């Protein structure tokens, strides 16, 4: 390290000699902070998304590094939100990366007092069995006066309104083919 570099390493010198006489910018910057790079700069890719909270539909930019979400920012291109996010939208990175997320299937057997592990494949198969069985046991072909009903009143569903249109579509399609009519959504609540 030369003397000149050494002297320039002093914040006080930089404050007096440089463009930052108040010492609140570059003069006070350490090499550590100078080397910091924003996560948004380091991302491998930026993916366009939409905020999952309220129905304003603010644009989001999702920053991904090493196949992990590292930051979510408002999308300035959106004519709806012009880059802004509210406190909830700003917390969406914390939502999708939250340690509170359940990532493994949990199972509670009838009368059980603890959660148990279950393979995802097994769980879906068990659920399919229960749907088929309950449908068979509660099927109504006609009412007392012979009018067609073709349905089960034994199976019901309540969806949140953060479901994608495509998801709602498959749900309605499958439930209707099953004859399940008690299919509802937050939209009624």
């Amino acid at each position, binding site marked *: 390290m030369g003397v000149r570099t050494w002297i320039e390493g002093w914040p006080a010198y930089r404050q007096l000699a440089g463009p930052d006489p108040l010492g609140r910018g570059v003069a006070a910057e350490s090499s550590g902070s100078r080397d910091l790079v924003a996560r948004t700069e380091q991302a491998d890719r930026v*993916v*366009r998304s*939409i*905020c*999952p909270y*309220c*129905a*304003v*539909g603010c644009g989001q930019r*999702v920053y991904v590094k090493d196949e992990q979400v590292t930051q*979510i920012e408002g*999308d300035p291109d959106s004519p709806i939100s*012009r880059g802004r996010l509210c*406190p*909830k939208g700003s*917390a*969406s990175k914390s939502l999708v990366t939250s340690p509170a*997320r*359940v*990532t493994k*299937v*949990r199972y*509670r057997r009838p*009368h059980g*007092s603890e959660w148990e592990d279950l393979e*995802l494949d097994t*769980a*879906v198969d068990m*659920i399919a069995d229960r749907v088929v069985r309950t449908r068979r046991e509660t099927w109504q072909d006609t009412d007392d*006066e012979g009018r067609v*009903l*073709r*349905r*089960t009143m034994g*199976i*019901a*569903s*309540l969806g*949140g*309104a*953060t*479901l994608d*249109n*495509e*998801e*709602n*579509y*498959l*749900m*309605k*399609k*499958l439930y*209707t083919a*099953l*004859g399940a009519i*008690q299919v*509802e959504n*937050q939209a*009624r*609540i």
Partner: protein
Amino acid sequence: MAEAHPVGFQWVMEAKKRGATVIHVDPRFTRTSALADVYVSLRAGSDIAFLGGLVNYVLENELDFREYVVAYTNAAAILREDYQGPDDLDGLFSGYDPDGRHYDSTTWQYEGADTPSPGSGEMTETEPAQGAGGDPSASRVGGAAGRAASYGDTHGSGGAAITGKPRRDETLQHPRCVYQVIKRHFARYTPEVVSQVCGVPEDQFLRVAREMTENSGRERTTALCYAVGWTHHSVGAQYIRTAAILQALLGNIGRPGGGILALRGHASIQGSTDIPTLFNLLPGYIPMPHANAHPDLESLVGDEEKQAGFWGNMRSYVVSLLKSWYGDAATADNDFCYGWLPRLTGNHGTYQTVADMADGKVKGYFLVGENPAVGSANAKMQRRGLASLDWLVVRDLVMIESATFWREAPEIETGEMRTEDIATEVFVLPAAAHTEKDGTFTNTQRLLQWHHKAVEPPDDARSDLWFYFHLGRRIREKLAGSTDERDAPLLNLTWDYPTDGPTADPSADAVLREINGTGPDGSALSAYTELKADGSTRSGCWIYCGVYADEANQAARRKPGQEQTWVAPEWGWAWPANRRMLYNRAAADRDGNPWSERKRYVWWDAKAGKWTGEDVPDFIPDRDPHYVPPESATGPDAIAGDDPFVMQTDGKAWLFAPQGVADGPLPTHYEPPESPVANPLYRQQQNPAREVYPRRDNLLHPSGAQPGSEVFPYVFTTYRVTEHHTAGGMSRTLPYLSELQPELFVEISPALADERKLQHLGWATVVTARTAIEARVLVTDRMRPLTVDGRTVHQVGIPWHWGPGGLSRGDAANDLVAVALDPNVHIQDKVGSCDIRPGRRPRGPALLEYVEEYRRRAGITELTGTEGVTP
């Protein structure tokens, strides 16, 4: 709006910067009030009186936009002679059936109309046991009220059908023309009465009336924005009706800067209605078939075909949907498999279902991103329902109270439930976050926006698309080879979506393309007007047809807003037809010219012979504004050149609704299902057609002058805060948001704090006949005591996000709320009466005794507060 839709509120602030006056009317003072020019505090549940007062002010002073009103509303239509309203019948409309608790709408019709009335017996309840519990009166009440209503809400976006166009008096002088009828109806809502009912000072009300009327007309428009708290009332649909009457009279519909803007609360709640996971609808607001009325396809679509407007083409929408679902199996010879659709027999809404669940009638339940143990009214009844199931599937991002009820429900602590007694088998399947899947949300302005998958979901987490696709695939495999006729719809279902990636996630893009629809050659259609009734086209949701036009995902368009016009038509895709404002033909006058230069939006280009403007015109592109259809015309052919409301069968905005509303052709003020105030207007206390469930687990309070009402002397209402989201699953688990709003609180005025000796930051217990909850006390001037009908009324404000789980915890406000529903849409009333006392609530079984003591003092039985006609 600043509180619950902060980023949307930036546009209100832009308008304010340009000189707009911002008026905020709300029982609580919020961040919106802080930024408004005028803040009006009113009593929760009194909005119809306030809006009715504005309607009266407009009519009394003849401040309506007369040219618009005559041309584009049904003001000139002449009604029958035997219609009677609340002035004649002490708070009822003509046609009320006190036994069935519903209305027959025959007397509400236009003169000479021969419309069959859905309330008159065409639909009869076929399931006497469909109501609630062992109490026979319960089933009668729940079932019968549901009957007319479930028909009412199946009209979807088109409103009810009426046959033919009514006789009109365009001078508006005929004593039975709609204009004169509504003028008499709303005359009751004078500034004095508004003040008496709402607790709003007269001069403040008059300022709002002046601001609104002076800012409406040819040169100016006023917008009404509401968050869906407006719908959370036993008269919720009539709140919106009152707003619609006001805006139609002022010429504020279909014009830039006008409208009634519903600020919905969830990313795709609009989409969940368009492609409904709702019992009464098929995609695109097509009614689910009813066992009585719709035995075949003809009966579902036949009547509609005879009507004017775009619902006249309903057969093509339904056939294209059935083709989309049942593919080659659906042919003209088999009614396109219409017979495979299950049938309704009444109200099968979520509250009816949960009542049935609590009674052991429902065996299996899927909760998909929904937390009713906290988020639905009478959450205690919800938890009883969950504990009565055979099996429950919960799909969510985090452990929610609806998954853990079997060991963490408050009823475990009180001893009402024991974990080992609960037989419910619970599967918790982790869901993928929005960043982990492709798909579209439809925002509150009908705009579909595609979100791209950024990363794979962790471990067992999967999209709901994955779950339903693979569940359906397995069920089909298990039933393969079945010759049972009931399995035919499953085995013939088109269910062959391409999958992708390590988890075999189905392609959301392929599903969106199916929703859009395809033509005879298999290529994507570009508009719903291309749909055919002969089975040659397919479309999973006709109103979304065009979202995949030109084989491109139009919802994924992201041309920067700054590079577009102010309408920004190349960002996402709005249904229908990428139209950003509905009914925009009304932005031009009868001759097709803009009402004013200032407010030009869509107009008739006579030279080119077509409609043009800033937006996609909401009209037949080349229909001359002076076109008069022949008498025999139906469907779109019957739309006259000056009929801007193209989904209505008469092309006009309905000031008076001759059909389709379950609880009256006009809005009128009723008190909430529970209220310490006797209705100041007439004997009828509550909406006589509201749906109630007289059950031990859903007790209501006496109201008004009834003995026992004084036990619950205060009004409570629930609401949101900026930092939390709905039932909390997406916010109470996050550290930043939990730090910003760390626990449940109640907002009260200093006067109420004084009256009940409540300490700021101390504890309070809020009690209803359902249960008692505890919360921190926030004493604030933001809550104001109101003078209502000569006495002081205190209000208690409770945010409803909390539950016992997560980082930020508290009792659930919905434990206090009773189930009493709007008869049109079966949505709960969030306003009730309560008591509030200092200190924490009792623990364990002592809580039950504490609440029981209140019930005893108030003399409450299962029938309290459930009367139809007020005795």
